[in-house]
């Protein structure tokens, strides 16, 4: 069993982003003397940044307890998902750069009813990925090509026994 939390660095970074965005968009919205297309765009931006601020707040007070049998999110919105009931896994990769570097992964686990979403900024994300890839292979869960590619690129192949991809590709292991 292990417990994971979002790192202080990632939480504070998100707070800074949300605050800057909210100050700019809401400030400009409040300062408006006439309603033009810009004000609608600022309003949409303010809603977006406010939503992001709320999500960051929830993340700050959330943590994940991972055991051999289940993964549980504790905090303001508790949620528990058994590895045995896992039937849908999605791993997405986001990057704001054209060369797709410096991005982050987002892992979504679901049993059809309960959904848990985790970002790679979570401390212990690699351990969850390892358990997740093993479960996907053992339970023969169908995943999209994108998810499979993303698991491979992050070092966990879904093609073999759940071992990291490099080990599977190493011919010396067969000898």
């Amino acid at each position, binding site marked *: 069993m292990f417990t994971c939390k979002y790192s202080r660095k990632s939480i504070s970074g998100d707070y800074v*982003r949300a605050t800057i965005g909210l100050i700019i968009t809401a400030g*400009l919205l409040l300062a408006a*003397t006439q309603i033009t297309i810009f004000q609608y765009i600022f309003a949409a931006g303010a809603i*977006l940044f406010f939503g992001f601020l709320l*999500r960051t707040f929830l993340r700050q007070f959330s943590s994940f307890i991972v055991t051999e049998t289940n993964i549980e999110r504790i905090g303001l919105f508790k949620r528990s998902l058994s590895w045995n009931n896992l039937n849908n896994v999605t791993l997405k990769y*986001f990057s704001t750069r054209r060369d797709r570097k410096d991005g*982050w992964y987002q892992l979504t686990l679901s049993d059809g009813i309960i959904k848990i979403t985790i970002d790679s900024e979570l401390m212990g994300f690699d351990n969850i990925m390892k358990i997740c890839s093993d479960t996907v292979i053992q339970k023969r869960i169908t995943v999209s090509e994108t998810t499979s590619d*993303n698991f491979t690129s992050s070092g966990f192949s879904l093609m073999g026994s759940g071992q990291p991809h490099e080990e599977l590709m190493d011919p010396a292991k067969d000898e």
Partner: protein
Amino acid sequence: MLSYLIQRVLLMIPTLVAISVITFVIIQLPPGDYLSTYIAELQSQGENVDIEKIEALRAQYGLDRPMIEQYGLWVLGMLQGDFGFSFEYQLPVSEVVGDRLFLTLVLNFATIIFIWIIAFPIGIYSATHQYSWGDYGLTFIGFIGLATPNFLLALVLLYLANVWFGTSIGGLMDPEYIGQPWSTNKVISVFEHLWVPVVVIGTSGTAGMIRRLRANMLDELQKQYFVTAKAKGLHPLKALLKYPLRASLNPFIADIGNMLPQIVSGSAIVSMVLSLPTTGPMLISALQSQDMYLAGSFLIFLAMLTVVGMFLSDIALAYLDPRIRLGGSAEK
């Protein structure tokens, strides 16, 4: 996805600030200002110019202030919804633009829909029937469409309409509706006049899209996944629409960023030829007369549309083709 959206939005802010600075500097680069152009115009007509009055006007419009101060006032005003004052029209910019922006949006959205409706079936047909008579014929028509300048087509249509039907097809509505409030008859009149500029502006775009869609589809149709899908018995039409067409659409989605500003500024020459009350001719006129707030507002609006368009196309691409944004080959 929320984090992605937030980061993309935050990146847009410095981009827009930089664009606004560049736009303002470029508008200010030509020597003089609107009033000096105005004085030169009056003097060329042999009229006397009251220098004191001109200086008073310069102070009134804030043209005597340092450039950075003018920029600050312009940006702050714009962010508050005040786009400034048009010197040429002696009206606030928002009033000058008026219906023109709306009519431009109607015209160009209609053009985009026309292009897509015509280009998609032809592009798919050309790709799936490569080197057939139909493909050759449509390719030939496509090349003619690409090679014909829009303004020339507009002139030809104007001439033919005048010679054959004795009517003018210029404008976007009958003259009696110009400057009148919107009514059902005015809307009908707009739709009656809309097809000519839509066909004129859309011809080259349609031809270009047919060529690009055909090329993209041909690439995709030769890939193994499509051959496998067909070999496994998937209905050819379903296999075609679900996979190769979807992959072929990426360049068009990525093009949204360029398409949105063209909605406002594009087709300026055609608008002049056909006397269309759109924003393109107004932008050119504002730039020529150094009507800085009108021109600046247009340019910053175009820049904003480009940045927002890029943002929308990135999000659409992420959904349409996960390989582009969400795919592998990335390092954590």
